[in-house]
Each structure stands twice: as C-alpha cells, then as structure tokens.
C-alpha cells in the first residue's frame, strides 16, 4: 500500500527553482534513501512533505488523504514525524520534556499516558543518562539522537530523517544505524536523506537521487549507485 505519494510537486524561491516536477511513491513499511549534491533541494523536499513549506504546484497525498495544503501541526498528527538537519531542540526544556512535548501534542494524549513511552524511547536512543539535562547543553551526538528520539515520540507512521548521521564517528554512526534499523523493522516507513552513504545503504531498500531539484534516479540502491548518471553528477566521477 502506498503511504506517501508526490505528484508533480514544484517549489521556487523567486527565480530559483528548488523542487521541479518531483513525483514518487513510498510504500508502507519501506525505507527510502535520498541522495544528491549540496543544494539539490533535499531538505526543501522534506519541508514540503512535512508542511514547513507549501508547494507551488503538484499534490502530496499521505495515508490516503490530500495533505498538500495542510499545516505541519496537522501533518504531524496524521503521522508524519521528522528530524531536522541542524538539530532544533527546545533548548530550555530537558531532554525528557522535549519528548513529552512531542508525545503529548503529536499524538493528542495526556502526559501521564506517554511518560512510559518517552522513557522507553530515551532508553532506545541511549539518552536516558541525560534525560533531566537541559537540551541546550547537549553534545552533537546527543543532539542528533534527540532529534531522532523526539520524532519517534510523535509515534509516526512515516519518519523523515535529515542527515542524522552527519558528523558522527564510525562507532556513533553504527549505534545510530542500529536504532534506525530497529525502528524500520517495527514497521515504520522511513525516508532518509544522508551523505554518509554506507549508513544509508545499510538500511534503505530504495534510493532516490535528486539534482537541481529534479529526480534523476529512483530504484534499487546498488543499481543506482552504479549508474552512469549518479557517478557523474553526484560523485563527480567522469565515466
């Protein structure tokens, strides 16, 4: 079953077209990776899916409903969770409270109903030790983990991860991959933008390549990585 479907989605900032006629479907339970050079419009595409930006043309359907004009808050309630490329924690709240906000408002539940879940997510994302620290004082890895944990706390059907492995050490990266794999195997649909390719390809089943706002490849990760276009445009290798 298709959970997310983009049809001819376009977005421009003035004369600059950052998303051009993008169409693709994501099947429920699948993990899709998105790659592309800097400035290809990957994060913009995420913002269009989450509603932080609205598209100029085209339509976005999520879970059977047209969400093209729906504000981000409602998209979150209908099951779209996200992490930000640059971590955006609620600085003055504690790590635990960051999750509480997401869980209570993202699922319209009371604090009492979600306390256990939040604690369990903190355990899963290895943040339990810093649960009562204010989020503003966290280190990079912990900030990235908090992004993931907070998105998980909204109990999403579709989770959008924006360069969550960037800037981490190999060991840190492996730990994060395992967490994401765990999530995926529990049935959450994932779309993941990542420059750390080995991390990405170890999880995703399909890969989408974006360049200058256009989809230039979509399919099996191995095939995509070996295709001529991707090597030329994305990796900068002349074939």
């Amino acid at each position, binding site marked *: 079953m298709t959970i997310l479907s983009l049809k001819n989605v376009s977005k421009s900032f003035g004369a600059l077209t950052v998303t051009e006629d993008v169409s693709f479907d994501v099947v429920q339970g699948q993990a899709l990776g998105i790659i592309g050079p800097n400035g290809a419009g990957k994060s913009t595409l995420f913002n269009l899916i989450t509603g932080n930006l609205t598209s100029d043309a085209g339509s976005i359907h999520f879970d059977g409903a047209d969400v093209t004009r729906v504000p981000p808050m409602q998209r979150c309630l209908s099951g779209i969770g996200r992490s930000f490329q640059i971590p955006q924690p609620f600085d003055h709240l504690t790590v635990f409270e960051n999750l509480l906000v997401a869980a*209570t408002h993202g699922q319209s539940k009371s*604090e009492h109903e979600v306390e256990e879940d939040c604690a369990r997510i*903190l355990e899963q994302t290895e943040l339990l030790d810093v649960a009562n620290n204010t989020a503003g004082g966290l280190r990079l890895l912990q900030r990235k983990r908090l992004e993931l944990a*907070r*998105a998980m706390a909204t109990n999403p059907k579709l989770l959008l991860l924006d360069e969550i492995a960037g800037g981490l050490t190999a060991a840190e990266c492996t730990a994060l991959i395992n967490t994401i794999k765990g999530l995926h195997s529990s049935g959450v649909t994932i779309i993941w933008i990542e420059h750390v390719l080995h991390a990405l390809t170890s999880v995703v089943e399909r890969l989408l390549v974006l360049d200058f706002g256009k989809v230039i490849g979509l399919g099996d990760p191995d095939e995509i990585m070996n295709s001529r276009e991707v090597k030329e445009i994305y990796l900068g290798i002349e074939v």
Partner: protein
Amino acid sequence: MTDTAMYRVQTQTRASYSAGAVCIALIILFILLPTFASRGLIQDLFFIFTMLVLAQFWNLLAGYGGLVSVGQQAFVGMGAYAMFGGVILWGMDPVPAILLGGVAALIVAIPTAFFAFRLQGAYFAIGTWVIAEVMRLLVAQWKVLGGGTGTSLPRTATRQMWVTEWIQATFDVRGAAARDILTYWLALALVIATIAGIYWLLRTKRGLALAAVRDNVEAAKSVGVDAVRMKWLVYLVAAAGTGLTGALIYLQKLRISPDAAFSVTDWTAYVIFIVVIGGIGTIEGPILGVLIFFILQSLLADYGSWYLMVLGLIGIAIMLFAPRGIWGLITEKTGLQIFPVRRRLVIGAQSNKED
C-alpha cells in the same frame, strides 16, 4: 537498562512542599493584615501586589510565550478607562466595573493581535508600543471621560461602593481607609489567582507547548504543537489580566488621565525591570523583582531622574552578568525551586530521592 526498569515522573521538590505551606500561611496573614496594619503598609502592599500581577502577565507573554511586548500599558489604560466608563456612563458600582476592565482589554486585544502577530521580535515590541500610543490618542478624544485632561470617579459612586460600609463598621475606619482595604483585598485575590493560574498552566501540557514555541517555533509545529493557538492564548490571557489590574489600580487612584493610564514607563518599563532583575521565565523571579523594585523606589524616589538612571544601570548590569536574573543566580547556587515546573524522570520505582 533492562525492560524491568520502572519510570516515574516527579514535579514536586521537597522545597516546593514546604513552600506551599509557607504560601498558605502568608495568604492567611495577608488577608488578616488590615486588622492591625497601618494604612501606609496597606497602600504599599497594594502597589506591590498590582505591580506583581502586571509583572507575572508580562513574564507569561515574554518569558514563556516569547512575545516581548512594550505595549502592555494599552491594556492597563483600556481596563481603567472601561471601569471609569462603566461607573460614569452606566452608573455601575466600581467593584463589578473592574470586570468590565478585563473584558474591554480582551476585546481590544483581539483585533490588535491580528496586527501585532504579523510582526516578529523587535518589530513586535515596537508594534505593540505603537498600538498603545494610538489607543492613548483615541481615548484622549473621549470627551465624556475628560478627554486629554482626564477625570475623577464620582464621589457618590465611591462612597456607596460594595463592601466598604461593612469594612467601615467592622474595622472602625473612615471611607477612604475602607476603600484602601477593599482594593488591597481585591489586589491580593488577583495576585493569588494570577500566580495560581499561571502555575497551573505551566504544569499542564499546554505549558510545555508554550515553552517549546518560545524555544523553536518550526520544531514545535513539527511535533504537533499548535503554535498560533498558543500565542493567541497567552496574548489574550495577559491582556485580560492586565486590563483587570489596570481597572483595579485606577479604582484605588480614583483619578485618571490618558497620559497616566497609558504610561509606558509606569506600566511597561518598570514591569520589564521587575521581571528582568528578578528572573525572566520563572514565577519566583517577578516576586523577587517586585520586592527589589519597591525597595529601590522607596530609597531613591526622591532623587528624580537619578532614580531612573540607577534603575537603568541595574537593569543593564543584571542583563550582562546574570541574564537569568537574581532568582536565576539563586537557583543556580542552591537548586531551590518554589514553583517547580520541571518534569524530572526518575528511574527505578523504589527511588524516592528528592532534591
């Protein structure tokens, strides 16, 4: 950590339990105070209570909602003028007319919010100030209420005010002193309701959402927080509360003029000073701040403009060296919290360690 780990969420601290008891004792003391305190003390406490209410509402707006308004005098003025209007034009009793002040401020806040919410940060601050100035100029045109020179509450209305006769008889005081006692009690009720209300709000999930919106609007929206609704909520609540306080302040003053009722210095600059030196974003901060402000004012009020310069310098020094205010310094050193809003995750069901 294993699956058997138990989690518990704790919001109270040991200090907050004893603080609760102290608060109740203080409230009882304050209620009974007019039986033995001097009229001067009652008036001073009236001033402290009303400034504290204004400070708590400004703190709710700026410290929790991230809406730094420099135009709260708009609601003080509108509240006060609505009360005067109710008494002079409709012959209302001044005490219920205070409620009219709250309603009027709320009604005025709705259209102005549409305008102000289009602005962000410093522009929002200036925008709110402009709105207040426009209101001052409009009210100055209202000839029935004295126009630019202002007016007084009619003596007949203040003499027959609710409860004053009973106070006169019970405490054996004259009309003016009875009125002071009445307004003091009303201010006490307002300050208790305000602090209790804000404390309650911050401990609900809306309080968390408010803090999230203040820290990061985009992220808050992405986790399902209705950021626009939160802004509206605090703006309207603060406007109504500020309007009530304005009406009460001018019931005690008995005389009103547009320049005084819409004074940016009296109703916003001092209020910001109180919140900033006390500690923004905490309930305890404004309480400490208003006491410091009152002491400074008592000590320095005779020095005219020097007084304002000293206030300004203290404000700047605090912002530079203790951005979370004096209460912030105290919590940093001692961990003391009288009105705790933090949700602490405690691991292990057996643990009952508190701090």
